[in-house]
């Protein structure tokens, strides 16, 4: 998506290259932000519809309740009104006050407060995993790319392949088995704030796949850039290999990594269902899966809207970062 947009905007830029670059960029950002609003509303509407189409409801449980009780519950939550009333009410509260209402399962807790307290947990684990993945991935990928087909290239790429192939619901329990149940180094689950020993295993589990992917992307990007003319120029100028790699090669070589890690960061920050579930982390992902199973409509809508917004913002950031990393791209 970002590549397509970039092409399109390149076209626009060529037509009106008299405008200052910064102004163009600002215009682009504002336009993208404006598109966000209807997109979010569409996302909410579709989610709302899907919840309504799903069988079951939030109050149904193993012990069926007499019709009289069901009637009063529906009355209490306004479910007796026609669907368009309920939909309109929901959307109006969101548009007007950005209020998603109160959770149906977690009585008395507003959706906004649940998101506000679970986001930091998801974000802490997500950002740590992201940083770890970036650092290890870029270093491993660069090392591999600098000496292609060497032993260390094969070793790091084999590890990366392993990282991509092992899903986190396998990696997590393996790490728990080794580092928790066997070595007793880290607790097997539960959240204890940051920093604490509880953070280690979830972060490792979460970063595995991204680390591997980033390593491979870096290697591919770097290999291509290292063969390009401007690197030869840099070398010809007599720069040290270190300077060539860090100042010139990495900037170009990281382009594919950037377009990948933008949305990846959004996913990492907004919680990952599997890892949060395995390690019992009070993050957005845990709430999201539980809300879906509970048919907790306000909570589902709130989390979906929040994730959608984050994702759109990250995509925007990626496009902006592109312009910074590649001097040839202008908006």
């Amino acid at each position, binding site marked *: 998506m970002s590549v397509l947009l970039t092409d399109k905007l390149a076209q626009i830029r060529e037509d009106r290259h008299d405008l200052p670059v910064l102004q163009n960029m600002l215009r682009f950002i504002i336009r993208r932000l404006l598109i966000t609003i209807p997109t979010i509303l569409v996302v909410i509407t579709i989610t709302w519809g899907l919840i309504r189409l799903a069988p079951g409801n939030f109050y149904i449980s193993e012990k069926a309740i007499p019709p009289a009780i069901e009637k009063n519950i529906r009355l209490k939550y306004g479910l007796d009104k026609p669907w368009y009333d309920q939909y309109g009410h929901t959307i109006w509260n969101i548009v007007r006050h950005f209020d998603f209402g109160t959770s149906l399962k977690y*009585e008395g807790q507003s959706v906004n407060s649940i998101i506000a307290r*679970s986001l930091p947990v998801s974000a802490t684990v997500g950002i740590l995993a992201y940083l770890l993945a970036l650092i290890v991935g870029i270093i491993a990928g660069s090392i591999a790319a600098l000496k292609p087909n060497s032993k260390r290239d094969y070793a790091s790429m084999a590890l990366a392949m392993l990282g991509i192939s092992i899903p986190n619901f396998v990696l997590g329990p393996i790490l728990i088995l080794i580092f928790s149940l066997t070595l007793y180094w880290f607790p097997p689950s539960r959240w204890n704030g940051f920093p604490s020993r509880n953070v280690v295993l979830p972060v490792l589990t979460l970063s595995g796949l991204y680390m591997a992917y980033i390593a491979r992307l870096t290697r591919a990007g770097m290999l291509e850039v290292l063969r390009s003319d401007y690197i030869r120029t840099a070398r010809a100028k007599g720069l040290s290999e270190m300077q060539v790699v860090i100042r010139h090669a990495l900037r170009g070589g990281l382009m594919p990594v950037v377009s990948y890690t933008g949305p990846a960061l959004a996913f990492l920050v907004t919680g990952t269902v599997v890892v949060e579930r395995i390690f019992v982390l009070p993050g957005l992902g845990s709430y999201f899966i539980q809300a879906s199973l509970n048919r907790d409509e306000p909570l589902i809508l709130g989390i979906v809207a929040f994730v959608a917004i984050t994702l759109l913002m990250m995509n925007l950031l990626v496009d902006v970062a592109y312009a910074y990393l590649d001097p040839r791209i202008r908006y």
Partner: protein
Amino acid sequence: MKAYQRGSIPGVYLKELIAAVAIAWFVFGTISCRVTATTGDFYGSTIPPKQNILRYVNGDEPGSLDPPISTGQPEARIYMALYQGLIDYDPRTLQAIPALAERWEINNDSSEFVFHLRHNAVWSNRDPITAHDFVYSVRRGVSPALASQNSYLAFYINYAEAYFRKAVFAKDSKTNQFVLEKDVADTAPAAGSAANESTTTDIGSEYESGVVGPESLQGPDVKATGGPDTAFHQLMHSPARLTLPGDEAARNELLAKTPKLQAVLAGTQFVPVSAEDVGVEAIDDYTVRISLSQPAPYFLGLLGHQLFRLAPRSIVEKYGDQWTQPEHIVTCGPFKMKAWIPYSELVVERDPLYWDAANVHLDEIHFFVSQDNPTSLNLYKVGEADAVLNHAVPNAWLQVIRPKKDYMDGAEASIAFININVTKPPMNDIRVRRAFNMAIDKVSYATSRLVTKPLTAFTPEGIFVGYPQPKGDSFDPEQARKLLGEAGFPVTKQGNGFQCKGFPVGEVEYIFNTNSSNRAMAEYMQAQWKQNLGITVPLRSMEFKTFLPLRNKLEFKGFAVGLWSADYMDPFTFLGLFSTPDGSNGSGWFDPKYVAMLNEANLTLNPQKRYELLAKAEKYMLDNQPVIPIETFAVNWLKKPYVKGMYPNAASLYPWKFVYIERDSSKWDYGVPSLSDK
């Protein structure tokens, strides 16, 4: 390209290979060491926590801390720490023991209860707890605005259901007299025999679910409990008033159908049933009287339920649905809220103001959230948790965990069965239903499940002492095939097995909500029917919330898995399932004769005679085979040997004040603590 020039690959990677083997050896070596270390008496670490703290893996994140609201077990356990009711459960037998009420009197037909409250009980904000708090809590629990899913448990109380349904009384405008139920009873026969039935059913289904029998059933031999005969008390003991739907449209429809009723109601005005009409009365500040609309010998045991635990009026009225938030909450149990980290843990600490605080042993309880059994057991194994919730040990782990001395095993008041939709052919034929029941070898099934017991009746095996539990049909494939033949679906021999060509397989299926044990059960049943009847019933699994409406509204054909656990320790909590056509009745079988048999039993004063009548009703139900009973569950959890005062009772309810941490290892529990000795 380069790789080829580098010569033989094995030579190049020899070092790495050695390193990899070394790492693997180290890792798996240590794992196997640890495994040997844990093959001792207990599963994992047995080092008691440094402080007097119990860390309990409690399952799901609690939904609400408002006692009447939630229906789940995780919440029920937290409520038991934070709130108290008139009675509590004995930690072993679950019989009623004094809590807020020091003592009580029950009249001889169990329809009126007087409780004497202790004078030294206070809320966590130091306000005294009085009889008015209890009255308020019950009225709130059955109020239509709260819409509690538990409210049906209080429908035994006079006019509680009418209040919940927003019903109205009819009052004569001139004489100011209320129209009574018996006035209407006179009109019913006059409306003709066919209309008679429909009238009573209409009224019955609209105002009383089956659990609540006709009012004013008390005979002349019934003696009242002590206490003054207040105006309210007289009202409770005068003939029952007629209640009608509060909704005008529904009421007019009913009146249109029964002209006689309309005639009786001419010139009356309708008065809404109010909270003050519900049969709970504060005789004085420390005495409560509860009047039921029918005898309910099991009612005392119900009073420990969260619906009857006390909520603080002033706080509830001040903060609305926010009152349970940690900054507002006021509690009355042995423990009070210390911290709540949502989706992680809820910490309660001993309340020094609790009337029996001297006998509360634990300083704190940490209720951990964990939805995953392996996760819960991991926490337990490494010693981060001291006990785990019931059913936390997966079947596949039993081989390892069951021999351990900290494994908790015992009979459980819950059963698994298969609902049969009796409203659709071919399952509307009782012979077909019996054939499907008799074709299942339940004994082998229970053996394969390791911890459960085979069941042919509908009440759990070995729970209700003195209950003469009837036996249903046992495994008899020969007879099953014969019955199926009689029903018009002859079973013929084919090779080593059987086939039943005429059976409409397309008209049946077996639905269940997806989880591993339900799947194993479904596959076993399918195999049994295939093997013994030559019928392959298709299986269909679905998510829980998809499954429930299908089953509850009878929108399935054939079979649907069913589970039931006791609300209170009486066979009626199981048998009552089929006393209404709706609700949890997942088979569509409803027989007025059965309801009459249950009512007769509940009106019987002699407990043993009552049990016999209940057993007779159960037998009648089993003969009609609306369900296929499968197994009685067993509790299945772990607690560290140093956790004492916590027992594997039949309902997995733990009155927390009896629990303590024993540091002297000679006094530890080795094996399951006895449920009987004191």
